[in-house]
């Protein structure tokens, strides 16, 4: 009575059956839709279709979100450089005003009388400035560009701007790209390492297992953050690849234990003995026979690690050990937001946290559902 064999015309494999179970889970499908949406955005931004020019200064500094309305200059608090450069209006109560005016008039008269300067500009002391023309040119160019910029810079943006006037929406999209790529790549690396080591350790046992277990124990006895900081210090360079390496090299331990346990369990099963009996080699037994039977464990671990590493990237970047300056990620956005909050500019913080919270929640829910779908007996 324990097996009901139902004849089906097609023969669904493990993955087809899991997908069928997953599809009947509404929450999982909603979570999957959110995750897929994020991945699509990532794809679009990575190929440069959207958010290519996220670092263009399209808004005024700290332009508020459109729904808050434009801010006045005082509200903006910080004076723009262009405002400081403009010639100050004459202050009628300035005691030096009349003297300066007189000085200028005298100098102009002298210049007109002698004509010795040959049209070259004289400074306030009547000396010829050799760089005057170049400076004038630069000034002229700057003025033109500034005029252009002032023309294009908008007072508000859909979700505001940061210190430099970058559009927060585009910056968040670009930041998602970095964070998700770091999370996925690091999780892939860690899962690959953990699976390989776990498989070798569990399958061969004896001294190989002893050695790897010893290595694992030493490795896990170091506090996690310290380990990350140590690897970061050794690698020296900052960059996306570095942080992937750091997370991947430190995060394999959980996968290792799980996969090792699975291999120990499976290597004595009759189907593996049967494979031995027909002459299958060790590698063949490890990866062609056993691996498909434990791959769901690796997949669930991959999913769990991705969520964890996205969060780790945020923390590392927030602490300043993550992606370099000039690369947008959720972590670097939060890092910038520290100073902005004092000025009351909350939108960069809100955008980065919201994007992260939505993705992490959806991914976690999806991971749970995935585990249930792949291993229905566990439920």
């Amino acid at each position, binding site marked *: 009575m*324990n*097996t009901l064999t139902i004849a089906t015309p097609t*023969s669904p*494999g493990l993955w087809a059956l899991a997908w069928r179970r997953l599809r009947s889970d509404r929450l999982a499908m909603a979570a999957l839709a959110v995750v897929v949406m994020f991945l699509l955005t990532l794809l679009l931004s990575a190929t440069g279709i959207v958010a290519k020019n996220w670092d263009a200064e399209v808004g005024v500094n700290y332009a508020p979100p459109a729904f808050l309305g434009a801010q006045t200059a005082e509200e903006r608090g910080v004076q723009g450089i262009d405002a400081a450069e403009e010639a100050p209006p004459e202050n009628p109560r300035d005691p030096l005003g009349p003297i300066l005016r007189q000085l200028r008039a005298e100098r102009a008269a002298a210049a007109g009388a002698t004509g010795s300067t040959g049209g070259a500009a004289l400074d306030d002391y009547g000396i010829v400035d050799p760089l005057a023309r170049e400076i004038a040119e630069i000034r002229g160019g700057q003025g033109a560009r500034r005029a252009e910029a002032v023309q294009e810079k908008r007072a508000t943006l859909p979700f505001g701007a940061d210190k430099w006037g970058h559009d927060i929406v585009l910056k968040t999209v670009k930041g998602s790209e970095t964070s998700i790529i770091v999370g996925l790549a690091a999780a892939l690396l860690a899962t690959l390492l953990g699976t390989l080591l776990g498989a070798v350790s569990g399958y061969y046992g004896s001294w190989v297992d002893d050695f790897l277990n010893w290595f694992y124990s030493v490795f896990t006895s170091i506090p996690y953050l310290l380990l990350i900081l140590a690897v970061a210090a050794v690698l020296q360079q900052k960059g996306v690849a570095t942080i992937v390496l750091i997370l991947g090299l430190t995060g394999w331990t959980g996968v290792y234990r799980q996969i090792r346990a699975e291999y120990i369990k499976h290597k004595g099963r*009759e*189907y593996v003995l049967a494979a031995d*009996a*027909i*002459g299958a080699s060790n590698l063949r037994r490890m990866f062609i*026979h056993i691996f498909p039977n434990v791959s769901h464990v690796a997949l669930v671990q991959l999913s769990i690690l991705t969520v964890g590493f996205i969060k780790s990237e945020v923390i590392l970047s927030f602490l300043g050990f993550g992606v370099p300056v000039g690369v947008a990620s959720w972590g670097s956005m939060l890092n910038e937001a520290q100073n902005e909050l004092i000025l009351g500019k909350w939108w960069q913080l809100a955008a980065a946290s919201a994007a992260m919270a939505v993705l992490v929640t959806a991914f976690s829910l999806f991971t749970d559902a995935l585990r249930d779908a792949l291993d229905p007996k566990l439920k």
Partner: protein
Amino acid sequence: MTTESDTLLGVRDLRVSFRLDKHGKQPDFEAVKGIGFDIPENATVALVGESGSGKSVTALAILGLLPPENAIVLPGSRIVYGGRNLLELPKNALRDLRGRDISMIFQEPMSSLNPVFTVGYQIAETLRLHMGLSSRQARARVLELLDEVGIPDPQAKSSAYPFQLSGGQQQRAMIAMAIACNPRLLIADEPTTALDVTIQKQILELLAALQDKHRMSVLFITHDLAVVGEIADRVVVMRDGGIREQGSSDQVFGNPRDSYTRALLKCRPPLEKRPQRLAVIEDFMQADIPPPEPAERRRGVVGSEPVILEVRNLGKSFFTREGLFGKREFKAAHGVSFKLPRGKTLGVVGESGSGKTTVGLTLMRLHEATAGAALFEGRDLFSMPEAEFKRYKRRIQIVFQNPYASLNPRFTVGQILSEPLSIHGIGSGDAARRRLVDELLARVGLSEAAYHKYPHEFSGGQRQRIAIARCLTMKPDILICDESVSALDVSVQAQVLNLLQDLQDEFGLSYIFISHDLAVVKYMSDQVLVMNRGEVVEYADSDEIYLRPQHPYTRKLLSAIPKAGQRIRRQISPA
């Protein structure tokens, strides 16, 4: 011997369905299709059927233990006990009844006992809950009960944990728990299936004696008709959720009316003769007249046959670490010697722990031998390097016990059967291999459609056929069958045994046939090796073993084989 008045429990028109998926896309599966039978007072009723017959579902329905999430008891079903319909009783009334009036013992004693409590504690718990005894009274009663079920030294065993008892003692402890409250009905679901034959006999004797002494009724559920012949008063034969036949034990065994019952009785290998083929269910179901008795098959060796495998003094020890540097040696098998003539069958028989499986695995070098030699065409298999052994591997193959575990669940049947071909470079090209696989599938009685299916879509017997086909792909000379039919229903077992015999006739295979079932071994083998505790106790022609057993252990094994229709003596013997 029973009349309507002394019926203890009556099942009336019981119908149980299982919901297969919650969206109702698939129709419900009807597991029990309107059955009815009586359990008289002070009698043993056997409920017999193969897997999928609905016998266990019936027992669970009586106890109200069907899984509530997907089992539906259809309206109109009634289970009458003491004038009340158990199916309509409120939950707590039913719980009160369970354990006190009706109790149950299960197939696997190890998994039915809680491993973290002592045996005594678990029995005492039942007593305190249902009988309201104090701890001191309960403890005294536990000792009485353990003594009654024949566990030696009850004082010590009551404070033992389940893993410290042997399988037979565990089942005795379960029985003690079940009879603790003097139930009126004891439901025993395959209580001896997981046990060795000699232990099985003891447990059957114990159940019969207890039933007599306490004047209770027993509902004995089993797949093996032969087992119940010795203890049942009435027999109910079920198949596919319906009752095929019910009647007194004498009538069912002596004069079975139903063709299915007749088939079940016939498809177990008989001890006293050796038909060419075993009867299978289809023989009886298609024609209503019983098929003619097949001719006898001759077995045995004359001594002049060419020997294909000679094993000398095979030994296999396992070592466990003890202390810092010490190790303890456990001899799983030692001093095993035999000669296997080409095209003949050597049976290896013994109880669990006798080392018979170790011998099989060591011959395949799945275990490394610690002593001895195995000469295959004059070459020692144990001492040759791994690379050289690979060539011999395809000539010795093994079929494992559990067809549910020996096939990789992630491979299709096609992949399973093609793999040995590609490993050993048999057949040129995919098309040739595909043709070879299809031929083999047809040979073992499976259709070509099986090629793209996964093992879980097949029944146990079909899976064992796939496992046999996998071995045949390599055209081996020797096939080791390690308990290959033990996990199968008797009717399916007969089919697989017939297939093995046909293959031997066709390809001239030599078999090493390992089993705990002496009847099957005797039927299949030319020579038999009886093993006990890692040693060979007797080695002779199979007819010789059956007719003139020399060793007391062999005699003990022979006497434990259940004989249908012969009542056993009702007296308790110690474990």
